[in-house]
């Protein structure tokens, strides 16, 4: 029982850990941005049943929400090469994150669009906005505003889920942790510290989403 | 000795001094109506009487059960609440239970009344409020007036010594108000001790033994309703009456 916790390895690996954090954040930023864009496209196609995208998005959403992220990742990284599509680890990781988050945000944003009252659209129509303006300011913004907290949570979940990208050797934070513990034989300390770092990252991502929400979404359209 | 008595009652919400030294005595069988402007503290006073709101100073005594500041332990509260029934503006029936079960629940759970006996009580109480045939109906199958009468039956099933009613007709459609007031009138006739807040002034004048006018957290004026309406003693009450019509 006389185990001594030893965190003295930390300074030696600080640089690597920082790189891992940067990699994970990079995945999150790119995955989050593209995922939400896909989600907007999906939500719009599904809400107005734009053919052929609406039905296609329907299959896509169900497929990706009902299978594990890890399996999606393996299918992309290990499976696609048999179809002649060979992706680097980072490309596969990003693609998997974008597709996964895209499926979830499609459904989240769709719920927001459905909750937008029709009266607002008609009011805006009568004010002679262009269709595009109506969509942007009267439909999309209020919808995003409504579901932004749910969307933020989903981005955090996706960020946390990205730790399995270590399994295809994408050099994100968990990959770095695996590497360190194989060198220092301090597995518990290493994973404990890494877990704490993810906890901090989750807080950070949540704060960032909150700030983005305030600046991009909440501000009322200027008239 | 009064059945309900409060003394030096004070209540703060943060810095908002809502009750400022209330002294109120209610005799057994008396019907007391509390009136006053919005925010004058009527609901708060009523809610302190059964411990829904804690008090910051003073004492409350109901039929020998006392509630003091800092000494509101759970058993004292439970004791007090068995003597004080309450009916709310929003009915607050339990939506997952039938009318009969709503009425049976507390006797069974709190008083450990056997199911059969509780059911008899419930049937009797529902009959008392004119809803004998609605025993198995669920709240969402009842009109607002019917729901409120079930709520009254539910409170009565605990055989309270006093019944508190906080604007119990305010959430009702006008045509449903009278069926509820009718039940209250009948209870008053049977000698039930009632303390109520209402905006139905005509009804208050008709059934109350005592009218209490609250103003800025104090009992500003009180007395016999006919006398008070005939000759208000304070300018505030006079202007309150004036604002009614």
């Amino acid at each position: 029982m006389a185990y001594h916790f030893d965190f003295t390895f930390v300074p030696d690996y600080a640089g690597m850990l920082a790189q891992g954090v940067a990699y994970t954040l990079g995945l999150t930023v790119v995955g989050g941005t593209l995922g939400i864009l896909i989600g907007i496209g999906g939500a719009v196609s599904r809400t107005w049943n734009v053919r052929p995208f609406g039905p296609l998005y329907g299959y896509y959403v169900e497929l990706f929400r009902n299978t594990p992220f890890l399996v999606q990742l393996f299918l992309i990284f290990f499976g696609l090469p048999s179809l002649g599509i060979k992706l680097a680890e980072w490309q596969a990781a990003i693609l998997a994150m974008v597709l996964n988050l895209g499926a979830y945000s499609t459904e989240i944003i769709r719920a927001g669009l459905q909750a937008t009252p029709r009266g607002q659209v008609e009011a805006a129509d009568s004010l002679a906005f262009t269709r595009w303006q109506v969509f942007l300011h009267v439909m999309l913004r209020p919808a995003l505003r409504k579901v932004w907290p749910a969307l933020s949570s989903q981005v955090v979940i996706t960020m946390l889920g990205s730790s399995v990208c270590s399994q295809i050797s994408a050099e994100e934070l968990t990959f770095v942790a695996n590497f360190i513990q194989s060198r220092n034989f301090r597995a518990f300390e290493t994973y404990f510290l890494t877990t704490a770092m993810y906890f901090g990252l989750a807080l950070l991502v949540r704060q960032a989403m909150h700030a983005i929400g305030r600046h991009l979404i909440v501000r009322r359209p200027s008239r | 000795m009064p059945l309900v008595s409060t003394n030096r009652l004070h209540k703060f919400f943060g810095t908002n001094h809502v009750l400022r030294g209330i002294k109120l005595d209610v005799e057994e069988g008396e019907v007391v109506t509390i009136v006053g402007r919005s925010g004058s503290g009527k609901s708060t006073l009523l809610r302190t009487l059964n411990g829904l709101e804690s008090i910051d100073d003073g004492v409350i005594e109901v039929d020998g059960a006392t509630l003091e500041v800092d000494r509101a332990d759970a058993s004292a509260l439970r004791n007090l609440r068995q003597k004080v029934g309450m009916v709310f503006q929003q009915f607050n029936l339990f939506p997952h239970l039938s009318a009969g079960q709503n009425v049976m629940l507390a006797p069974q759970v709190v008083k450990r009344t056997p199911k059969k006996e509780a059911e008899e009580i419930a049937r009797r109480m529902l009959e008392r409020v004119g809803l004998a045939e609605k025993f198995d109906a669920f709240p969402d199958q009842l009109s607002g007036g019917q729901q409120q009468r079930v709520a009254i039956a539910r409170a009565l099933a605990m055989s309270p010594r006093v019944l508190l009613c906080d604007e119990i007709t305010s959430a009702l459609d006008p045509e449903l108000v009278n069926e509820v007031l009718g039940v209250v009138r009948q209870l008053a006739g049977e000698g039930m001790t009632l303390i109520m807040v209402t905006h139905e002034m005509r009804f208050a004048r008709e059934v109350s033994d005592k009218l209490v006018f609250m103003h800025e957290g104090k009992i500003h004026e009180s007395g016999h309703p006919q006398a008070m309406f005939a000759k208000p003693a304070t300018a505030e009450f006079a202007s309150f009456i004036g604002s009614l019509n």
Partner: protein
Amino acid sequence: MMTFSLWDIVRNLLIGGALTLLLSLVAFALGGATGLLVLFARIGKWRAPRALAQMHIELFQGTPLLLQLFTLFFGLSLFGLDVPAWLAAGLGLTLFTSAFLAEIWRGCVEAVPRGQWEASACLAMTYWEQMRHVILPQAMRLSIAPTVGFAVQVVKGTAVTSIIGFAELTKTGSMIANATFQPFLVYSLVALGYFILCYPLSRYAQALERSFHAAR
């Protein structure tokens, strides 16, 4: 080298799938029971249990499942315990599930209107009597749809336990993919397996949600 027929692949995956199902059921049942305890601590009156419950929830919701499994696996081995993969997997998923369910259920308890607490308090019920007879029955109705919905997350979460070596569906798939050199086929079948488990649950949760809203 061994050759695999399609039936060989499917048969092995079915065994892995059975373990995935078993692990999901165990994690969901134990996680539900633990989650109930966490819930009561979280919404109760006592300060210390409340803080602990909140910490539990934030910790397990705010960190990756994979690292929870690693930390648990290596943490327990510090006590000289030789932790088999199935135990770490079951324990880890149970804790993970308990945190999420406790939080989902807390939302449901808090969605019960305050008037229900007040009305039952006025009838002289104690806290536990109110809970048992008035609040929980209502919260339970609210919770069915999101709880079924979360079951999908549990099934998918089991895939992560493949990484600590539990031979469930994904791990079995990886081994077969390596042996057959047919990763696309094998992982597609693996994905299909999860889909077969999850899709009905998702649909059921949606249907519950809809019928609930229709009933209001």
